[in-house]
């Protein structure tokens, strides 16, 4: 129990620290705010002919693009970033498990991205005058919560993988738009060739998009929504279990190969 309080405190401290540290970082500000806002603007314009109902669809979808990009580039680099700062050795040497620290940092990113979704909501309603109503507010909030959980835990999986394979990291650019497409953030995956559908089903972002779109735009049956929620929970669980192993392997590897520092 005491351990839980301690860890909760570390998570909050890491999140706060991460926000403070990245607030002035142009790269982060762009990834979290500018890029999703431009995509929202573009989406609103492009989908304008489809009528006002698409306002909320674009707001949610562009918000998801921001969530994914910041997860990929910022959370994915969170351990590598500490290595550059020279703080990684200290972080490994503290009594708090590394995963707890990374969790706090991921939480900050994901919450910041959700914040940017709120900004694009305002933009759409004020600038474009769309009536932005959320069809099922309570279910939407639950979906949002599960989305946060799924993305934060996914961040726990990619950070150690990216650190251990510098080459993977260089390919992260190549993971950005394909997920936008396959997860159906801004258009239904029905537009895509059929063989891609199973891939989508294996992506937590797809289920997040599914749950958020269904509960905000409306039209989803409670069965569909429950499946999306269940899949997100399932993936989160898998990610947490996977990340425990990954962190153990990563730390062991770093301690035996002396790769904590930059030298």
């Amino acid at each position: 129990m005491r351990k839980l309080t301690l860890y909760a405190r570390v998570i909050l401290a890491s999140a706060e620290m991460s926000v403070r540290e990245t607030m002035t970082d142009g790269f982060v500000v762009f990834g979290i705010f500018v890029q999703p806002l431009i995509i929202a603007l573009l989406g609103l314009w492009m989908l304008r002919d489809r009528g006002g109902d698409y306002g909320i669809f674009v707001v949610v979808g562009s918000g998801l693009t921001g969530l994914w990009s910041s997860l990929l580039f910022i959370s994915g680099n969170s351990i590598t970033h500490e290595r550059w700062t020279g703080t990684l050795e200290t972080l490994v040497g503290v009594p708090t498990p590394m995963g707890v620290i990374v969790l706090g940092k991921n939480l900050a990113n994901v919450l910041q991205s959700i914040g940017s979704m709120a900004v694009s909501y305002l933009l759409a309603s004020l600038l474009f005058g769309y009536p932005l109503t959320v069809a099922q507010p309570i279910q939407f909030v639950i979906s949002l919560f599960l989305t946060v959980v799924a993305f934060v835990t996914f961040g726990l999986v990619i950070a150690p993988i990216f650190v251990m394979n510098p080459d993977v990291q260089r390919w992260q650019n190549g993971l950005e738009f394909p997920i936008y497409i396959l997860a159906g953030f801004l258009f239904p995956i029905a537009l895509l060739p059929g063989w891609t559908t199973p891939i989508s089903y294996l992506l937590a972002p797809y289920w997040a998009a599914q749950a958020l779109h269904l509960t905000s735009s409306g039209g989803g049956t409670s069965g569909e929504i429950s499946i999306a929620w269940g899949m997100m929970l399932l993936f989160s669980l898998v990610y947490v279990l996977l990340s425990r192993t990954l962190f153990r392997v990563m730390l062991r590897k770093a301690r035996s190969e002396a790769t904590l520092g930059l030298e």
Partner: protein
Amino acid sequence: MRSVTLNIRLFFQGALLSYVALFRWLSPMTYLASKVLMPLAQILFFSFLGMYATGQANASFYVIGNAIQLAAVSGIFGVTMSIGGDRWEGTLPYLFGTPANRMAMFVGRAFFHVLDGMVGVVLALMWGVLLLGLDLSHANPLALGLTILVATFSTSGMGLLLGCISLITLNVMFINNTVYFSLLVFSGANVPLSTLPAWMQSVAWALPLTRSIAAARQIIAGGSLAEVAPLLWMEVLIGAIYILAGYFLFRWFERQAKLRGTLDIF
């Protein structure tokens, strides 16, 4: 005469330098991926979004727009990188200490990226043909090639200007990314310009790419070189204006830095 050969040599050395610098950043495999796969993902995303919005029939509108837009990847990111690189490497004071012709030094840096950008656009159009049913059978190849050249030239001009700004500000990537994404809106790659508010249309016509994209669409629809010539000439002019602006900013920056002794800080 001697000065001409000197400047030509300087020009190609700059070109070579930025070429080498690019490959130090990216391994050949990653370069290939960034040249072949990444553009595909971006084109697919916006084309699907566009088709979802306005129907399958309009696919080529989005494919062409986004393919030409890719010229900006080399033009903006590549060029700023090769100029900003000096700042990170700390070689700026040495450059400013040389008697070299600044214009040759400066434009040489952009040269390789123009070639690189053209390859990118051609590959992107190939993807369009292969995957999204783009039909190039009516296009005049010479006119299309010229349009691609002009598009990369003018975005590289913009890249030079941004590169000089990057010597002054710290957040290079922030500016570059923002400009690149804004071009997705303003260049007409994804929205017909006529549907934008008047002030946005005026901005659009002052930017590179807008005319190239319009010209490329006309050519692919069967238009002749003569029909798009006015667009292309204007695009060249715009590129030249950006290069000049960048050049003067560079000179101004050099003078300021020498006056205030801030060469090392930047």
